[in-house]
């Protein structure tokens, strides 16, 4: 397999992985903040 293709496939897999991770991590955080009733940034950061 050519070098560009190998790097490209790695980039595609890691890029999609990053997008998926960020989406589902964010979903979890949104739910967690919502459950504890929304507050200021400082309180949320202290909590998570």
């Amino acid at each position: 397999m050519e070098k560009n293709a190998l790097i490209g496939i790695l980039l595609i897999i890691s890029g999609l992985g990053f997008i998926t991770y960020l989406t589902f991590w964010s979903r979890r955080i949104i739910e967690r903040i919502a459950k504890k009733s929304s507050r200021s940034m400082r309180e949320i950061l202290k909590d998570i």
Partner: protein
Amino acid sequence: MDDKIQISSELSRELTLFQITMMGLGMMIGAGVFLGIGNSIFLAGPGGVVLTFVLNGVIAIMTACSYAELSSAIPHTGGAYNYARVGFGRGTSFLAGWMEWFASSVAGSLYAVTFAVYITRYFKILGLLRWVPLPEHFVEKSMGVLIALLFLYINYRGASETGKVGAFFTFGQTLFLIAIGVIGFIVVIKDPSRLQNFKPFLPYGWSKLLVTMGFTYVAFEGFEVIAQTGDEAIDPRRNLPKAMLYSVFIVTITYVVVSFAAVIAVKAGSPGVEGAPWHWIGQFREMGFGEAISRLIPMGNLFLTLAIIFASTSALNATIYSATRALYALGRDRMVSPFFSKISRKQKTPWVSLLFTGILLIVVVTLLPTIDVASSASMMFILLFFLVNICVIRVRGNMGDELTYGFLMPFFPYLPIIAIVCQAILAVWLIHMSLIAWIISPVWIIAGVLIYHFYSKSHTVTTKDEIHIIEEETTPDAQDYRVMVAVANPQNALGMVNTTRELCKAKNAQIELLHMVVVPEQIPISDADQYMWEGKEAIVEAMLYLRPRFPISTTIRYCRNVARGIVASIRQKKIDMLIIGWHGKPKAPAFRLGSTVDPVIERAPCNVVILRDGGKHDFKHILVPLAGGPNGGFALDVANILAEKEGGEITAFTVKRGHDKFNLENFVNTHRERLKINPEIIRIKSVHSLSVVDTILEESEQYDLVVLGCTRRPFIYKVTHESIPEIFARKCRKPLIMVKSAARIESWVKRWI
């Protein structure tokens, strides 16, 4: 009993998470993917097209996080225009609205062009163009103008598609595209030789990728329309961020599978295909996607044309709506002439804004080639997202304690910074795709700056979040060094007078006395002066003692949050040192010292001196606990200034815990020479102990004053960990001064952002 009945009105919240996600998707899957795939294959090759969408997805999800955080904290209609107003004020806000209007209008042009290109192509396939005695190019342009006029009229009538119907169509389009991707995968499983279509993966190298990423970035611009639904979405703090992130996730997956399917759709050597399949698809440029898909699925042309009709028209409708709303908002807030906020009596729609949006849209459709339309739209959205990424850093820094958040992005501030850098690179690289886009965008922004400077600045109306000067008395600049003293009340002012006098004398400074008037949200700005009397008294009290010796300016300001008001004043007046009092205990558990002092220490771009009982005594014995931190030198400087000139003594003190490498003697000697401290008044003391705070507390009992440097740790560390100086400060019962010195680069960045 109150005899007046107050009736409040608001938009009904009816849009669900599904509907707003689909609205975002509808705006994204409008054109970028249909026009972009063929062009990307042509420019970057078969692997390049897939990479283009994945990498754009990565940049888009980072920007989506910024939008998500801002929309959860400021969940109102207005999008980037609103965020910029809260984060930066009127000037940047105007620019955001001005860019948003252009970006949405040009994106609308792109959708009209997409519709025209594919409808003309289908007519050609059916042989209908034979009956039209006009050049194909002219037919395309006319189709674009006609569809634009139709949707301008629909918007004028106010007949915007309802959330449910719009969501239904978008859902259908997305399913259709995913189905194409699934078919592509099935075809490859049956005939793995089609994977050879990906050879060579990047025939023209990696640099072409930046060009294709730049001009297809418009296919990821759906957050703006989601942000616009802030007043109509159910549970917006929760649903807006989710919808933004879901839409980017779904759209990236969709684009990746569709571009994959487009590349493998054509079998090498099949009838009519000459050369490598990717090369054959690429030669059709914007129609390459259609040519490829028509060979992948039966009746591909018909299904594809139907999908494009739905996709481009719903996106066109959404962008006209969005652009009109942006221009209307500028007119409503007097950023441009109020003429633009005129509403039709009969149709109840902003007809002037709609008319000007229509003119801009049709001019772009008529005059610009497709690539330049796509590039111009991409360029303006890139610049708008660039601004939003800066905004999220600024808003969290300035108003993080005032706003209620529903979402906080991870890896802050690295994600927005990476997004800013990537977007800057894409914007620069777009010059290889379209010089016209590169000329139009800066010209548009410069025009905006001029309009703001000569019109908006003097006409705009104020908002409740802005900080206003209620009363100000200035003296001509007499000294270079400027000390700001923030006074809360007469007692607090008296407590700071002695220390202020000594510090200002040593620095040969000019004094700025500041009092912030906190006015509750419910009280209008015009009534703020009723809250200023206590501050006025405090200022007069401080002036009695300080005016004979120093040039003094006084300012009383109205604000909603004291810390933000103080930091804004420091920036505005270019202050070198802030002196502020501290009552001694945080009232809210999330703060280490207090809800005003904590943010001021974190954000003030100058030296900060915090006093607790620091103004009432003569200081003969001063304790300076040191651990090698960057504020230690400033603590020694302040202690040296305050130590009584006759018989005063400073003790530099450290607690060693066994493994510490900190050399107190070297530290003191370095700073002693720099600060010209008399060696006779300073002594050094080291103690071995495991309990640092208790040891310093015990030692402090023998002194008149403790001068201590604040922690200089990253904000997140400070929020999640307790640091020794702050624990000590809360427990210490002696007069205390805490200091933070301004690191030059950090202060410069803080002043700028």
